[in-house]
């Protein structure tokens, strides 16, 4: 690894870490989603500054040059982040579905003027409730 390459790696990784920290500080990036980024960038900083470690790592994974090692690890970290992001999106989709359905149900309840039999909206699959004789309950002022 040439001195230029090393210098570039150091500057790039440090700058990335600073950008991430600044985004978290300004609350543009939520703490709960920043941990993987911070882990990644700290890892890159350590690797670019600690030449002995990167040489040992290269020998371990059979890479010919330390530059390759740096690239491979950067790639693996990015892969991890991408997977993490898709799991987050999946969770958001789930929550959004719930919310959309809840809004729709509330709208329907408003139309027919009746409150749910029980309060908890997460009642599905629970204990079977006694059916009302007629589903049309008088709009009761109970909680």
């Amino acid at each position, binding site marked *: 690894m040439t001195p230029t390459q090393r210098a570039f790696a150091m500057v790039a990784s440090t700058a990335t870490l600073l950008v991430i920290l600044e985004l978290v500080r300004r609350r543009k990036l939520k703490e709960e989603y920043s941990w993987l980024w911070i882990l990644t960038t700290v890892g890159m900083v350590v690797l670019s500054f600690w030449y002995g470690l990167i040489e040992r790592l290269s020998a371990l994974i059979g890479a010919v040059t330390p530059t390759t090692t740096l690239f491979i690890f950067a790639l693996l970290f990015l892969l991890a982040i991408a997977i993490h992001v898709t799991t987050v999106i999946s969770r958001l989709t789930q929550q959004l579905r719930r919310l959309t359905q809840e809004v*729709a149900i509330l709208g*329907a309840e408003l139309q027919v003027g009746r409150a749910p039999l029980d309060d908890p909206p997460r009642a599905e699959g629970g204990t079977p409730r006694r059916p009302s004789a007629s*589903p049309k309950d008088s709009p009761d002022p109970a909680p």
Partner: protein
Amino acid sequence: MESSSQPRSAGPAPRAQHPSLLVIMPAFNEARRIREVVGAVRGQVDADLLVVDDGSHDATAAEARAAGAIVASHPANLGYGAAVQTGYRYALRHGYEAVLQLDADGQHDPASIPGLLTALADADVVVGSRFLDRGSYRPPLARRLGMALFGAVASALAGQRITDPTSGFQAISRAALGFYAHERYPVDFPDADVLAMVARSGLRLAEVPVRMLASPDGKSMHSGLLKPLYYIFRMTLALALVPLRRESR
């Protein structure tokens, strides 16, 4: 019953009374037809009717309300599975004992409703099968082959014969509603995999013949070039996962 707000124009037609039944009709951009279809369903069965408007861009919700239906409107389009699930959740919240679901585009002949409801006495999920009915419309060959293939896999997983895995014409008992209202229920294509899960979870699954017609303007949620490919991938994955997951009721 909410139908009190609707003019009883149906005349003296013999309509079965089902006070604890909720009819669910998922609808997406069906403003032109929904009124007629709701009317036809009401002519068959006297029950509360919920139209789930899945983020339509047209006047589907207003038309359905005008036809006397209860309307639950998604603020955004979520997909067919999410729409029917909104109906299941509504049914559970209001103590309905059973659900009948059919499409809002008029493909599902309301005359087949009594058969589905009768079969519900001995089953938790009753699927209306177009292939058990002689007069039903037959989908194009390619789609029929796909349905037969996925149906065969689902049948093997379920341990019983499933002839029409993609049918959205169903009657569902309260016991199965809890199963359907769960997060496991897919938002996009709830068909072969769901039926396999239902049977494996110990719920009783049955099929009865129903009459299905061709969609009046030939559109299907499975048309296009990439959509069928995605469907094949999606359903293969979902079916492969069925035996790998343990679903609790």
